[in-house]
Structures are given as structure tokens and as C-alpha cells.
């Protein structure tokens, strides 16, 4: 199983190495996960040499993003938009080993160059605000309470000069509540050289992408310095991964309702004794379903990106991971190249023709997906509005090797964990095992200023499950701190797990660490009945308005007798003033 996986990876590596000389390259890998699900991984990579980037000579790296990075002194950027849940039990290992995905919502981490922490944070805020505008996401809400500085979990993916490492600051922020949708896809597509008009990016349609069962968009910008002395360049990689339900995607857009099928179309198990009467025990869908690109994505691929560019070479930009026995019909003059592994074939697209791929219904053995290195599930325990607990189950499926990983969790400040209750035990025994947590970095929360940061180095013995638990108290918020939908609860960001390579492995492998993330959690806090203060406010305001209106009216209005209106008598006024003066004089004399 693992060999298949390695083969798959090496394939990607070969593909990427072969075309590293080109400044832009794109690639789509289609892979059926189960007979009913299709994983589509889009990858777009643009390069720019370091000097041209610094001189703001942008060709494939978009100017909008490049200038933001320069303005915010950001040397390395990782931005993730994700929705849905990767069902590791049925789908196996994650695409790109989890390196190109984030937790639910938006996740951003970056290495920012600055002399001090304060300056780094200021740069970070600048970066967030700029990216927020660029991607139509609420990234500007990543403030100090949502920002952490991970110590052990993340490592720079780019090649940074050793001298600059001391001035690089890693900042990490998440928005678990952010709903990723088409308004984030459109700016994402605009960053591509072909902007979704040609090449594989034509398949990225918001309707299909956001109907996927799981979907993630990522942007990584990092400096790369090849080992053999050639000059450094900036690499920007955009990736979109999605898991499509073939049956659901095939539904026509004008009639997407999954009505019950007509009686005669039901596939029934005729062996059942009641099959002849009224019952129909439905048969499993075991054979591969038929699908084509335009059925699943709503349209075929339109030409190839940058095909007319003189410096560009045609590459194999679409790969399909199915067995060679599987019938695949293509149109549009693409060149097919079956890989030696027997489980993959790639296509070089024609410059302008529409590329269509069609897989008829056929029962073949599906390729067994590699198993993920670790299964993680996190949930709340207990109930009530006062306190609760978090329980994380971490399972090592390997029967032979123990596994070590960093477990990184950020909690909002209103969730106050008790570190003394943090225990890790094997699921089979009740007593906590102190040897499971090897080391730990903990940064406690400050009310309304920063959240809790917890990083643990955890080791799980082979074929066993570790239960990590801790208890927490729920804080009571000020009533203005509640969001409009206070009773929904508060999202707690997913935990990030970085699997460390086995201790015996070479250090070169560190950059290719496996990542995975748990699901986010919904924390319900004690919530006041908001109708109460609002009723009071509304009622008081009404009374105030009425009272104020009346009093103001009385104060401002001058009441004049009906007989006094016509013609103002000057002599009267004079005598009045005279009387006043006399009274004043009297008073003065009396005081004397």
C-alpha cells in the first residue's frame, strides 16, 4: 500500500522536476476515491526570479499579491480556505499529505521579517488587512486574540538565508467560522495567468467546487534556492483540491432535486423472497460509475494555458489515476501517456481544442488508497454552560512503527483550559501515561488579548489509540461581545497535527512532513436572553423620546397671549427694563 503511495508521490516529483525550468506550470490529477467519489487536485505553480520579484517585474506571480508581500515584509506565506471534512476512514490519506490544506474556514501563517515582535505583529496586521481585501475574506478579523506564534509545529518551507532567519517571525491565525464560497474563488482564479479562461482552470466553476463534499484552496509563496548554486527564485503555488460526489455532480443544474427514481429504474435484489411483491431491496453501487469531465465539472477543458507563449512548453497537465484496464475515451487531440506504474495516465492538451474525457461504467478494481499515518478526532465532553472538556482520540494505524507528531491547538480566550487536567492515556488503560507527551509548549491566554496556545509532542505506540483530555471553564462574555447569532455557539479552531518523520529517517525528509487537522468545534457559552435588554432599551427609548419631546417642546416654545401677538409695545418693554434696573439697584444697595 505504501509503495503505491510513494510511487504516486515520486510521480508528482518527476512531473515537477521535469518542468521546473518553466516559469509556469499547471497540473490536474483526477483520482476516484470510491466508486462514487472523485478527488480532483488542481495545482498551479508560478516562478519568478528573486531579482525580478524585488524589482517588481511581475510576470506569472500576480502583481497584486507580490506587492502586498513586499509591503508587509512577508518572506513566506501560506493561506488556506477549506470547507467540509476529509473522511479519512473511507478516503484514506490526504492529498499532498495534508500539506496543502487548512482547517475549516480560513487559516493563514506567514514568516514576516521584522526587527522586533511588535513590528512583526504590525506587519502581520498589514498583511491580513491587505489579503482580506484581495480575497474578500474576513482576514482582517485575525487580531491578537486569534494570532499565535507557533514554536514547534511549523517550519519554513522555503529556503531562507541563515542570516535572515533570526529576523523572521512566524505568525499564525485562523478563522474557523469563515464560510468559504465563490467570492473567495473569483479572486483566487484572477491570480492565475490564464484566469480560468484556458487550461485546467476552466474547470473551476463555483457551482461545482462549492457543492463538493470536501474542498480546499491554498496559496503558498516561498523562496526557493536550488542546491546547486543557480539563483534563487520565488515560487508561488496555488492548489485546489476537491472531492466530488459523482452522482450529485452529474445532476443537471436545472433539475438538481434528487427525486425518488421511477419504479422501473430501481435496481432491486431479486434474490429476496419478497422481491416479486412490493419490496425492493436496493442493490449496492459496486461498479465504477460512468462520468465525463463536462458531467462532473459542468464543462470540458478549454485549450491549454499559455500554449501560445513562445517560452512555454506543452506539458502533461491532466493526469488520471485509474488502472490501465479502465476504458477512457478522450477527445480534443490530447496526447495520452500511460505511466509504467499501471495505475496512472497523463494527457498533454491541445492548444485550443476542447478536451473532454469520458469514462464509461465499468467494474474494475479501484486503486486502494494509502492509509493515513494517524487518525484524529476531537470532541467536547460533558454538558452545561459552566465547564466542559475536550477529548482527542489519536490512533496510530501502523502495526509496527510508533509515530511521533506535534499537536498544536489554539483556544479562544473565553475557553479557559486547566493544564493540570491535561492527561494522555492509551485507550485500553485508565491510568494516564506520562511517556506519551514528550514535550510541551504552553502559552496561557490573557482575557480579551490573546488565546491559549498549546503545542505537544506526542508519541503513539503502534496499533493503539491515545486519548488526550483536558477540562476547561467557560467564561462569561460582556453582552456586547456576543456575535449576532450568539446562540449558535463559538467556533474553536481545528487542531493542527504535524507528523514527524521516524527518528531514523534522514533530515531531508523534514520538509515533507505530513499534516492533518481535526474538525472545528462548536462551543456553547452561557448566553443571556438578548430580547430582555433590547426590550428594556426599546421601552426606555420610547419613554425617553416621549418625555424628552414634551419637555423640549415646553422649554423651547414661547407661549404668547393672544392679545400680545399683534404689535409689540415698546413702552411696555422700556418700563419692564426700567423695573428690572431698579430692582437690581435695590438689591445692590441692600447688600451694601
Amino acid at each position, binding site marked *: 500500500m505504501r509503495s503505491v503511495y510513494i510511487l504516486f508521490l515520486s510521480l508528482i516529483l518527476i512531473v515537477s522536476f521535469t518542468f521546473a525550468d518553466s516559469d509556469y506550470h499547471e497540473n490536474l490529477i483526477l483520482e476516484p476515491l470510491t466508486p462514487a467519489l472523485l478527488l480532483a487536485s488542481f495545482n498551479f505553480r508560478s516562478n519568478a526570479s528573486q531579482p525580478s520579484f524585488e524589482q517588481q517585474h511581475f510576470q506569472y506571480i500576480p502583481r497584486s499579491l507580490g506587492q502586498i508581500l513586499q509591503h508587509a515584509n512577508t518572506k513566506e506565506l501560506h493561506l488556506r480556505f477549506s470547507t467540509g471534512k476529509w473522511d479519512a476512514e473511507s478516503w484514506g490519506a490526504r492529498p499532498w499529505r495534508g500539506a496543502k490544506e487548512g482547517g475549516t474556514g480560513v487559516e493563514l501563517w506567514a514568516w514576516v521579517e521584522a526587527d522586533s515582535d511588535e513590528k512583526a505583529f504590525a506587519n502581520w496586521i498589514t498583511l491580513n488587512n491587505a489579503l482580506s481585501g484581495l480575497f474578500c475574506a474576513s482576514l482582517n478579523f485575525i487580531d491578537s486574540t486569534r494570532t499565535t506564534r507557533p514554536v514547534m509545529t511549523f517550519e519554513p518551507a522555503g529556503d531562507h538565508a541563515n542570516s535572515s532567519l533570526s529576523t523572521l517571525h512566524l505568525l499564525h491565525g485562523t478563522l474557523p467560522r469563515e464560510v468559504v464560497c465563490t467570492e473567495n474563488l473569483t479572486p483566487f482564479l484572477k491570480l492565475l495567468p490564464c484566469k480560468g479562461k484556458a487550461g485546467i482552470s476552466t474547470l473551476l466553476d463555483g457551482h461545482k467546487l462549492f457543492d463538493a463534499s470536501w474542498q480546499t484552496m491554498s496559496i503558498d509563496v516561498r523562496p526557493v534556492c536550488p542546491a546547486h548554486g543557480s539563483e534563487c527564485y520565488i515560487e508561488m503555488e496555488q492548489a485546489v483540491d476537491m472531492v466530488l460526489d459523482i452522482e450529485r455532480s452529474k445532476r443537471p443544474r436545472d433539475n438538481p432535486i434528487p427525486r425518488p427514481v421511477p419504479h422501473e429504474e*430501481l435496481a*432491486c435484489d431479486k434474490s429476496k423472497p*419478497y422481491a416479486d411483491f412490493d419490496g425492493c431491496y436496493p442493490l449496492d453501487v459496486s461498479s465504477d460509475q460512468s462520468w465525463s469531465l463536462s458531467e462532473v465539472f459542468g464543462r470540458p477543458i478549454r485549450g491549454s494555458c499559455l500554449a501560445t507563449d513562445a517560452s512555454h512548453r506543452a506539458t502533461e497537465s491532466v493526469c488520471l489515476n485509474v488502472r490501465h484496464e479502465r476504458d477512457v475515451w478522450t477527445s480534443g487531440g490530447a496526447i495520452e501517456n500511460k505511466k509504467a506504474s499501471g495505475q496512472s495516465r497523463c494527457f498533454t492538451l491541445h492548444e485550443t481544442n476542447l478536451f473532454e474525457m469520458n469514462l464509461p461504467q465499468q467494474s474494475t478494481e479501484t486503486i486502494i488508497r494509502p492509509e493515513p499515518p494517524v487518525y484524529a478526532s476531537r470532541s467536547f465532553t460533558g454538558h452545561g454552560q459552566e465547564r466542559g472538556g475536550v477529548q482527542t482520540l489519536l490512533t496510530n494505524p501502523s502495526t509496527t512503527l510508533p509515530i511521533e507528531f506535534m499537536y498544536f491547538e489554539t483556544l479562544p480566550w473565553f475557553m479557559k483550559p486547566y493544564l493540570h487536567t491535561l492527561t494522555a492515556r492509551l485507550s485500553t488503560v485508565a491510568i494516564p501515561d506520562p511517556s506519551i507527551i514528550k514535550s510541551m509548549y504552553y502559552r496561557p491566554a490573557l482575557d480579551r488579548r490573546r488565546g491559549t496556545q498549546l503545542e505537544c509532542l506526542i508519541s503513539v505506540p503502534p496499533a493503539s489509540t491515545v486519548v488526550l483530555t483536558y477540562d476547561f471553564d467557560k467564561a462569561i462574555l460582556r453582552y456586547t461581545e456576543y456575535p449576532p447569532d450568539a446562540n449558535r455557539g463559538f467556533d474553536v479552531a481545528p487542531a493542527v497535527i504535524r507528523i514527524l518523520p521516524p527518528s531514523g529517517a534522514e533530515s531531508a525528509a523534514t520538509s515533507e512532513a505530513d499534516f492533518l487537522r481535526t474538525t472545528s468545534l462548536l462551543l456553547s457559552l452561557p448566553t443571556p436572553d438578548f430580547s430582555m435588554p433590547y426590550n428594556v432599551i426599546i421601552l426606555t427609548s420610547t419613554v425617553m423620546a416621549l418625555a424628552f419631546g414634551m419637555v423640549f417642546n415646553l422649554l423651547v416654545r414661547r407661549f404668547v397671549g393672544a392679545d400680545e401677538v399683534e404689535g409689540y409695545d415698546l413702552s411696555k418693554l422700556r418700563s419692564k427694563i426700567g423695573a428690572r434696573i431698579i430692582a437690581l439697584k435695590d438689591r445692590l444697595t441692600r447688600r451694601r
Partner: protein
Amino acid sequence: MPLDGLGYLKILAPPEKVLRWIEGKLNLLGRLPHYVSIDQKTYGRYGVLPTTSGPSLPGAEASLLLLRRDPRILKAPPYVSLLLILIGLTSLFLLPLDYYSRHTYISENALLPGQVHTYFGGSEQNIFNAYKHEVQAVAGKEQHEISNKLEEIFNSAGLKAARQKYQFEAAGNRYTGENVYSILHAPRGDATEAIVLIAAWTNMDGELNQSGCALVLTLARYFKRWSLWSKDIIILITSDSKAGPQAWADAYHNEHSVPAVEPLPMKSGALQGVVVVDNALNHRFESLHIVYDGINGQLPNLDLFNTATAIASGQMGISVVLQRMWKHGDSYRERLQTMLRGMVSQGLGHASGPHSCFIPYHVDAITLQAVGDGWQDEMAMGRCVESTFRSLNNLLEKFHQSFFFYLLMQANRFVSIGTYLPSAMLVAVNFSIMAIALWIRSGRSTVPTIGSKKKNEEKEPEMEVIRQDGMVAIAPKHRLVIVERELFLPITLVVASHFLGVIPLYIFNHASQSAFSRTFIIFAQANMLLPSFLAALLSYQSPLSTQQRLLLQCFSLLLLGMFLATLATLNFSLAFLIGLLAAPLSFVGQPYSTTSYENPASGGKVRKLLMTIVLQLLSPPAVMLAACKAWDVRVEDVLVEAAFGWTAHGLWTQVVVWCIWWPAWTVGSVVCSPLL
């Protein structure tokens, strides 16, 4: 000026020093130079009287002061108590009237019940039939065969299934089973929220829930095709209606008892709503019976009930019944009957369906039960569930808009807590009033009677002039006599009686089923003799003084009033029912009849006997026996149910009965025992 028979309230007053300080700061006494204190002990805080006109008191104030000592006022509390009870009871009976009850309405706008087309039907009927055949085929077989079959059906629908074994032990019985469930992940969700669809393999009456289980399995397959779910849908099939759902709900929140209940292998996010499908019929049904009571009388949000009702009756045209009122003509009688049934069910606090176990976890849940013989088929029920789930799916926040405290008297009429709470509170307050009256009474050395007052008119009562802190007061001499209250014995006795309640609580929750009927009969008999025995024991060496007796009853009633008032806010029905059953306790003893005071031993023997009989008839075991007779259930079954509820559900009706009601009853019976 306070009209003060209220001197006894001083126990509630803030500390002396604080008051003195406030007085000093505000210079209260300086501001009212013509008022001086008459009460040496309290410096006039509880009653000031003008002394400007010397010993003879001016008209109005004098009459008020006299009123304060008027025995007629001191005689009033029992009548006030009785009046409160009657008002409480009457106001309860007014509730079904149109003027007091309200039409139900959907408070949460997001729900939009019945606003979607439902598509469940057509060829789904064939699949349903097949699943029903499958369910019938494994009915009555071993648990693992049933679980295998269910898992197979889940898997064929493309859903992963998981199992959970559980075991509860109560009253020597063992309740075992296995829950099978599956999680249908929301296509774009992140497992943060979930809604649960449940069918119990056997329903509350122990019948095979054949159509319900088949329907849930068909719906699971049907729901899988939709991509619009914003929340995970958990499809759970429990092997029974009481233990299984409880085990699952406990384990979901990690509050299960290990290792009797297994942890759940798969979990989703926060549960937002639960719908239980119960259709044991093998034919078409007439109406939907919606069951909504939770454990300990907690209720689901009224919005959930309203949504289900609106969808069933409004969208599907299925009539909705509740509280087993199969025919409801919307008359006063029927409304009242529905409400009272609801109150009894709430008061008992037991699980009324698989949904009950979720409500203590603040997960709103209801059971939809198909009843009667009519023309509605299972597909209609399925569409009902589908539409309800579409509404739940719309929820952005958890249920919070509508009422959690209500009494339903028809599918579309309810009264909210603000309207019904006063009746239980009035009943509870009657005990407090009597307790206060007894407290005053116990502090009086003598009681001025109407007769003696007339005599006193001829000679002026003896007065005494008090001078203190530059103030002068004049007061009748007998007012200055301070009676010391002997608190130790009464408090000890009352506290002990409440702790004594732990004994029956323990016995009835831990005895085995076989011993229940015998234990109960022995207990009931012992309970009859207990007051006399205790009374004899108390007066064995020296009889209790009148004051001690008054205080004994006072503390007992005070506690009862406090407990019931608190309980009324949590479980209205239980507080109200116990309040009514304990009402005679307010009237035992008769502290205000001069005869019984002056000669407690001789007077009112007949009365005491009468009270004893009344109390014996209203003792907790007697009430329980009578209720069992009335509903035609065996006492043993009730006790088994209660013991199971105690172990599995965390039922505290027993605690209320044995540690609040029974001690109050015991003390009341001892006080009115002729032997004391």
C-alpha cells in the same frame, strides 16, 4: 408606618451593626425627632410610635397599634393559607380558558416549517417495504443478528455504521442491548452540528417498532442523496426505548458509566435536535401522537413541538394528538384533561419516550408516534420527518427563541410559565405563611384574647417609660417580656427527619425487584405507625413544650415552602402536586385556638384524631397505592421503573418524595399525634 405584627421578620433583617451604621450616616433618628423607639431590642426599627402626646395615643396610630396585638389578626394565617391554596387551585383550572391560554406560534423565524416541498414517496415505498420485511425477518432474534442486519442495510446505503453495547442494572434487573448508528456527514459541513433521527427497536410499550425502524432506514438512504444538509444527520437505532437512548446520549457527552456502557466509536458535533419515529403498526395510521416530556419534567423547546405540529397538521394534513388524548374536541373538559395528564407526566418525571433522555443534555427532542387506524401511510410519516428535518436544517442557532416552560392543552394551545407559575407558588407560599405565623406564635408568652381585652379596658395596662440614648419611649409592660425560643430540639428533629428520608430513598432504589412488593407493604405499615412511635419516643421522658411543638412544625413548613417554591421553577407540576398533597400539613396543630394553647393536652382530641386520619390517607405510600389502583398498575412496576430511572436517567422525583414530602409529612403527623 408599618403595621406591625411583623416583628418576627427580624430574622431576615440585615446585621445590627450595618443598620446602625446606615442610621448614623443618614441621621435617621435626628431627622425624626418626635419618633422614638419603643422596642428596646430593635431600637424601633420595626415599629416606631409617636410619643409627642404623652401616654395617651392619638387616634389612628393607636388603633393600628392595637390591631397589631389583635388576636383576630393572629388568627388570620390559617385562613390566608387556605385562601391561597384555593386561589392556586382555581387559577389552575382557569388556564384552559381562551383568555388565559394562547395559540402556539413559531418563534424562531429560521425554522420555516412546512415551507419546502417534500419528495419522499414514489419508489421509496418499495424500499421501505423491503426494509420492513428485513426488520420483521430478524425480529425476536439475537441482538447481534439484528445489529448485523442493520449494519448491512446502513452499509448498502453507503453509510458507515457503528455499534455501542450497554448494560444498566437496577432493582436486580439487567437491561442490556446494543445501539447501531450511522453518521451521514453534511456534504459541506465540518461535523460541528448534528441532528439525530432515532427509531427504537421496541417502543415504550415493548412492541416491535417495525415500520418506524424501516422508515428510518429508508430515510437514511433518501437523505444521503440530498446535498443541502448543513448539519450531520445521525441515524440511531436503539434496541429499546429507555436504556438504549440513555446510554447513547450519555456516551455522546462522555458521561457514561464505564465499562457498563461502551464509548461511541464515531461522533459528530453538537446535537441540535432529535426526532424519534415510533410506528409499531402494521397498517395505516390515523394521527400522530407527539410525546414531548423529558426526564424530571424538563421539556423541549416549544418551537420544536410547534414545528412538528405545524408540519403534520398544516402541511401533511395529519391530525396531531398529545398526552394520549386520542379524541380531542377542543372543549374545556378535554383541554383540562390534556393539561392535567401533561402535569402528571411531568410531575412523575419519568422517561416518556426515547427522546426523554436527550432533554437533560439540553438537546431538544420529541417522539412522533403513529396511532389509530386511518388512511395515513408510512410515506406520509416519512414526509413529515423529512420536512421537520429540513426545518431543523435551517436552524442557524440552537433552539432558544421559544418557551422551555409551558403546559400544552391541545396541539395548538399552551400556557406559558408566567401564567401558570403563580398557582404552584401560591400553594408553596401557604406553607411559608403558616411557618411565619407559627414562629410569631412561638415567641409570645401569653396571648391576649378578645375576652381579656374587654376586661382590660377598665384598667389602663401597666406602662413603663424607657430612656435610652437620649430618647424616651413608653410601652405596655408585657411587651417588654422577651421569650427565649428553644431552637435546638426542633431544628435537630426537622433536620433529622429530612435525613431520615435517605433510608426509604436507598431502600427503594437498591432493593431487588422480587423484594419490592414485600418491602413496600412493610414500609407502608411501618410508616403508619411511625408518627405515633416517634411521638411516644419524644414524650417518653418529658413531653415537648408547646413552644417546641410550634417550632417543630414551623421549621418543617418553612423548609417545605422553600423547597416547593424552588421546585416550582424547575418542575412546576411536581411542586404543585406535592404542594396539594401536603396542604393539610398547614392546618395540623391549630396554634391559635386559645383552648389548645392553654391546655394542649386535653383540647381538640377529636380534631387531632381527624387530622391523623387525613394525614394517614395522604401519606406518600398511601397516595402511591391509591394512584396505582386508579391507573391500574402494579406498585412493583412503578418501583422498578423508579429504580431504573434513578440509576439510568438520574431521576430525582424520588428525592423530592422521600427527602422533602415524606419528612414534612412525618413531622406533621408527629405534631398532630394524640400521643405527643
